[in-house]
């Protein structure tokens, strides 16, 4: 492939790809994102290759291993174009049927289709409620391209925004566009990207850097991963445009080593871009030089903090710097360095191509465009969702997410990862944007959204996040190290039933100091999970401390399992399944739990047949004295002898 030397070359190349592609040709897209990969998507893909060969369809059907489609709950996802037939939970053994029924006979395999609550089957991917309510401007191309193919990206108009910027716009114009679009950083803080770019551009110094922050580390969040795995060129194109606007000739991608597929696809994309003249010297013949280095992180959450990330790129331990000078002015090797998150970069080409007005038409007054969320936890449709800013939590959780499984009650949603907070049911109609979430005591963060039902203990949840932060903090400053540690100790104590009067106030007091005195944002926001749960669920904290009761029945030290002797039918199931032999009784004899032996694993409650419903979980009340050993069961009327 000769290098593309001008915008015309790129356009000609695109036309050549398109003329070789028949839009009506059958194409099977197999989601090969990390979620589907775990379901075994590679085996499905291999089965397709084999079966197509066996049926003599080679050349008539394209197979495309795409990036993440988003509906991870129902992997492996297979979409058959041009009809856009969407099959969910596809297993390798389903493949012969799909080939013979759908590809050959042009009929549907009903059992693999999405079924809504009324038993109605939905054929097209876009009509599934999970997708229907989304606006997938950034993430939507994932399902259409093979991330390892530059041709696929170019066929969809890829790099046309770069060509437009390089040949039809000055760097200042590009900068103005991004500023005017009010693109706010998708990595957490929501700082306007255009203003950051301008600071770096105007900062003194010839050498400037642009950086992609792909050190996504929030528990349960994987949108940056999926974007980088599924559409690496879109991130690269955004980075190139930013570099042009800022006047940078060297970029870095800081990506987690734990994301092997993202690293692999990114490396392939960079290689292709260099080969085609979209990277390195004299890009598209414009005279603009730019190259990118991939820096693989060694697995530290704190390295996602901007100054720590830059220290790590310099080759030192990724710890935050104490300086009061913005990295946009003095970053890597004290040179102006502009850092943006994966999703922010991937949004840039869209703004350049479709214009400021289009972008500003999506979203709310203060937050424009869309945001990708990783919708996880106690929700029916887990996966990645991209919605316009301003959509309410209710729409995301219930319309897209399909509500709470097993008919349980919604309790709270945690947004923003460990730095974010919990928002209770009363905020369900809150429009999601940077400012509204902050007002509610949480934050947008990078887009983690963990849904919790009535079975979640909020104290335990705060404890989980603090434990994460205690392990992930660098340990450099006293509030970040000792402050988080002391808060965690108090939370542990409360969960163990040893909470004391005044613990809530002490937590609040330490929180204030940790927030105000910490060296970096990890420490500064670490109290959020605690403060927001205290704010909205103070009664739960009080129940733990005063009544030694865990309302959600989660904290093991505060719960006991008890077999109701009047209901027990001596079926022996729990007795046999108890892993520590804590259940006494026998055939025809009432079962009882030896509370001293019980490890509170909950197996007895799970296995007790629902028609008996004899095992109960108690919290905050004394366990009734067990009946005398050898007591015979009271047979239910109609029960078998």
């Amino acid at each position: 492939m000769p290098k593309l030397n001008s915008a015309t070359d790129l356009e000609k190349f695109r036309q050549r790809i398109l003329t070789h592609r028949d839009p009506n040709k059958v194409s099977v897209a197999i989601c090969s994102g990390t979620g589907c990969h775990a379901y075994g998507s590679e085996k499905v893909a291999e089965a397709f290759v084999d079966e197509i060969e066996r049926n003599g369809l080679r050349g008539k059907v394209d197979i495309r291993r795409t990036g993440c489609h988003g509906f991870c709950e129902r992997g492996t996802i297979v979409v058959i174009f041009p009809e856009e037939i969407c099959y969910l939970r596809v297993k390798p053994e389903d493949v012969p049927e799909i080939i013979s029924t759908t590809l050959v006979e042009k009929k549907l395999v009903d059992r693999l289709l999405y079924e809504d609550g009324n038993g109605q089957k939905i054929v097209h991917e876009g009509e599934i409620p999970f997708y229907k309510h989304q606006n997938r401007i950034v993430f939507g191309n994932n399902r259409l391209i093979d991330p390892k193919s530059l041709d696929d990206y170019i066929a969809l108009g890829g790099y046309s925004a770069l060509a437009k910027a390089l040949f039809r716009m000055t760097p200042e114009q590009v900068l103005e566009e991004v500023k005017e679009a009010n693109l706010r950083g998708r990595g957490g803080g929501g700082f306007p990207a255009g203003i950051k770019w301008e600071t770096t551009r105007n900062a003194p110094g010839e050498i400037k850097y642009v950086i992609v922050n792909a050190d996504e580390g929030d528990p349960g969040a994987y949108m940056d991963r999926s974007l980088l795995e599924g559409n690496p060129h879109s991130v690269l194109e955004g980075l190139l445009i930013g570099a042009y606007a800022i006047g940078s000739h060297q970029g870095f991608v800081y990506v987690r080593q734990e994301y092997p597929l993202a690293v692999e696809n990114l490396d392939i994309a960079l290689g292709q871009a260099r080969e085609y003249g979209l990277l390195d010297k004299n890009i598209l013949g414009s005279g603009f030089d730019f190259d990118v280095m991939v820096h693989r992180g060694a697995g530290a959450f704190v390295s996602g903090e901007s100054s720590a990330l830059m220290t790590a790129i310099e080759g030192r331990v990724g710890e935050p710097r104490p300086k009061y000078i913005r990295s946009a002015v003095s970053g890597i090797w004290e040179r102006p360095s502009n850092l943006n998150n994966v999703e922010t970069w991937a949004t840039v080409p869209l703004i350049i191509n479709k214009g400021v007005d289009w972008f500003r038409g999506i979203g709310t007054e203060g937050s424009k465009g869309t945001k990708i969320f990783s919708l996880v936890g106690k929700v029916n449709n887990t996966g990645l969702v991209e919605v316009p800013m301003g959509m309410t939590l209710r729409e995301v959780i219930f319309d897209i997410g399909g509500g709470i499984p097993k008919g349980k009650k919604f309790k709270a949603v945690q947004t923003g990862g460990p730095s974010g907070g919990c928002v209770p049911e009363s905020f369900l109609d809150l429009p999601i944007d940077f400012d509204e979430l902050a007002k509610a005591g949480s934050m947008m963060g990078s887009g983690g959204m963990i849904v919790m039902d009535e079975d979640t203990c909020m104290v335990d949840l705060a404890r989980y996040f603090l434990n994460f932060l205690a392990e992930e903090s660098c340990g450099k400053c006293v509030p970040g190290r000792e402050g988080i540690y002391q808060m965690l100790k108090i939370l542990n104590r409360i969960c163990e039933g040893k909470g004391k009067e005044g613990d809530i106030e002490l937590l609040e007091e330490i929180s204030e100091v940790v927030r105000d005195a910490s060296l970096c944002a990890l420490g500064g926001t670490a109290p959020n999970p605690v403060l927001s749960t205290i704010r909205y669920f103070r009664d739960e904290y009080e129940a733990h401390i005063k009544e030694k009761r865990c309302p959600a029945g989660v904290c093991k030290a505060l719960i006991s399992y008890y077999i109701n002797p009047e209901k027990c039918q001596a079926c022996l199931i729990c007795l046999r399944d108890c892993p520590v032999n804590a259940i006494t009784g026998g055939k025809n004899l009432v079962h009882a739990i030896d509370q001293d032996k019980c490890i509170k694993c909950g197996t007895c409650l799970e296995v007790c047949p629902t028609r008996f419903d004899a095992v109960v979980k108690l919290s905050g009340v004394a366990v009734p004295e067990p009946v005398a050993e050898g007591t015979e069961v009271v047979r239910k009327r109609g029960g078998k002898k």
Partner: protein
Amino acid sequence: MSEVTLTINDKEVKAKQGMTILEAAQGIGIDIPTLCYHKKLTPYGACRLCTVEIVRGQRSRLVTSCVYLVEDGLIVKTESEPVIKIRKMLLEMMWARAPGVQVIRDYGIRYGISRTKFEIEPNFCILCGLCVRYCAEVKKKNAIGFIGRGTEREVMFFPEIASEECPKCGECFPLCPTGVLPSNYALARVPHFTWELNPFATGNKVKET
């Protein structure tokens, strides 16, 4: 180098541009507490005791004075209420790690603290990093460094370098605010010593319950 004028505790101060608030304050005899500052070393900003309040216009902000550079017209309060609140809490946290250490007790007296509300879990190292930074920046030997992160972070002599360099140097010992460094070094020289035997090893990881 040009001069700036700022106000520290209602006193007008002239300072050279590029100076930190801490240095400017020290220049006029205002003592801001700190445990990780050393004039020969790059500011580190870890103990956070030197936190002060700055006011610009209507807005006030808490900053670390060992790092924050002086600005013209800046108003600094080194002993305001929020500052003292922070120092008290930090001192109590360090007290739990280094009970009985003179410098922490002295600061405690200054801020009216005579005990800590936190459980005493001593390891006598407050991770100020003076030893590590002195060895790296002044001696350029890197015989001592940090290992681990979070609550498991600790200071460690690296045997390959330490066995060569430390016997003839020892300059970091007097820098240690808690005085634990020389004893840890002595322990490291005990034959067959392993760090698991170290009575001061941090070992304060919280167990998952």
